[in-house]
């Protein structure tokens, strides 16, 4: 087995006495698509920043594979209007590429028409594509995307995730992304990490989806979102009292979680009854 591209060990960080990362250990293997999901304020962006070396930690360490090339697409790109910047020039931001290469990569992400536009004039979706194109030009070993589908409409989102998967296939780079779009992401990812200050659960999308902690974090919204795609599955596995009990045992120290679980437990059978009736 080859060494992971990036590995975080026991990452712990708190801001003003409040824990943001609580003993987080995580690693990304070559060529895998890993998606971080979790509620707002769960520290997903912070975790990514720590892994990238943008943020230091109170304890723990980050090991990067030597010579690792990262392509980073941040959550937002706020280029001041006072700084004139065409897309053509922006693609050369951290290193130089020929014009042909730049046009090719824009073609690939479906944004060739903005080559000569000012960055500030782009729509949300175009900005995301251009940022992705720029990151790709680096031929990265690891592509890091912080909510890549932000400001992109729903059809665009599905297309964007498809594109990310295609890129991984073609370039063989690993992808680490943060996402809110649960059901869209699930289909296009190898490993899901459900994160809320600590790694709640991780694994294949199928496994994570059935994990009680995942359900307690995302509640019915998530169950619904997935229900669209896996309706029968949900009902057979997830509404069993055993799973809920099992979780209460494993994660007894998270009081709020187990509290939520009982709710899920009591209300779920009612829903089933309703369906049956």
């Amino acid at each position, binding site marked *: 087995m080859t060494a992971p591209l990036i590995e975080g060990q026991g990452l712990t960080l708190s801001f003003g006495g409040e824990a943001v990362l609580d003993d987080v250990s995580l690693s990304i293997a070559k060529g895998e698509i890993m998606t971080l999901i979790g509620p707002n304020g769960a520290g997903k962006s912070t975790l990514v920043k720590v892994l990238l070396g943008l943020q230091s930690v109170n304890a723990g360490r980050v090991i990067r594979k030597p010579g690792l090339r990262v392509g980073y697409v941040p959550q937002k790109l706020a280029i001041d209007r006072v700084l*004139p910047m065409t897309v053509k020039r922006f693609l050369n*931001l951290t290193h130089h590429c020929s014009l042909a290469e730049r046009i090719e990569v824009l073609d690939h992400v479906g944004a060739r028409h903005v080559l000569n536009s000012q960055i500030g004039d782009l729509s949300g979706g175009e900005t995301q594509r251009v940022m992705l194109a720029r990151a790709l030009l680096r031929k990265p070993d690891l592509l890091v995307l912080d909510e890549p589908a932000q400001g992109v409409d729903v059809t665009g989102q599905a297309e964007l995730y498809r594109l990310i998967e295609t890129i991984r296939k073609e370039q063989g780079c690993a992808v680490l992304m943060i996402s809110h779009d649960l059901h869209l992401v699930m289909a296009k990812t190898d490993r899901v990490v459900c994160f809320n200050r600590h790694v709640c659960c991780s694994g294949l999308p199928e496994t994570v989806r059935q994990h009680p902690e995942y359900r307690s974090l995302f509640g019915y919204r998530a169950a619904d979102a997935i229900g669209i795609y896996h309706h029968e599955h949900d009902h057979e596995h997830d509404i069993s009292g055993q799973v809920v009990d099992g979780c209460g045992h494993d994660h007894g120290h998270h009081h709020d979680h187990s509290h939520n679980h009982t709710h899920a437990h009591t209300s779920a059978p009612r829903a089933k009854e309703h369906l049956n009736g």
Partner: protein
Amino acid sequence: MDSFLLRAITGGVLLALVCGPFGTFIVWRRMAFFGDTLAHSALLGVAVGLLFGIDVRLGMIMTCLMAALLLAVGQRQSKLGSDTVLGMLAHSTLALGMVALAFVQGVAIDIMAYLFGDILAINTTDLWLLGLGGGAAVLALVAMWRPLLALTVSPEIALAEGVPVERLRVVFMLLMALVIGIAIKIVGVLLITALLIVPAASARFFSRTPEQMALGAALFGVAAVLAGIYLSWHVDTPAGPSIVISAAGLFLVSSALAPIVRRLAYLSK
């Protein structure tokens, strides 16, 4: 042409060429107040130079560099807003400079010359300093152009992709200090910021890339210097302020022309 006039023009043009690219970064990185603060600290350098018997120019460059270093360290740790830190340093160094100058015995100092510059009094040593010092600063800026610009556009992308962000920040501040220390002889403590930011602002109207804006700023600066010296020569106005007024006039004309130029560019597409 009188040789002092020729020296003034040469010095002014050289300075404008240096200030162009530096000024664009000042504007992009919102460091106008930072430049102002360094300039204010230079007056302390005049006093230091006179008191310790070293060249006044060297004294100014040294205090500018010291102030930049102080800010590079201080801003990172401070709980105060950076404008507060800058304001405190600017005015306390200016006051300290004035007080220190009061202790300098037996030398008649033309404070006005330091506050508003004295471009017509440029000598050959000044020109050499400007050519070599300013030239070196511009070469260094060109060498670090791409990473510094990446840092300006997005510190996060730059850092994630291996740009040595902290080092660049400090080096840029020191280069800035060098340029301001050299420039004060010509346009003075109170006007140097204008020569840095006004041509850059004018160039913004007509540029589509950062590089175009930097070159444009240099050209607008040269035009302002030439117009200012012309004004000073024919109407007998003080040279430094005349240059700044010319720069401001060029900005107003640019802002009026900008929509027309944009329309023409659009039509020609």
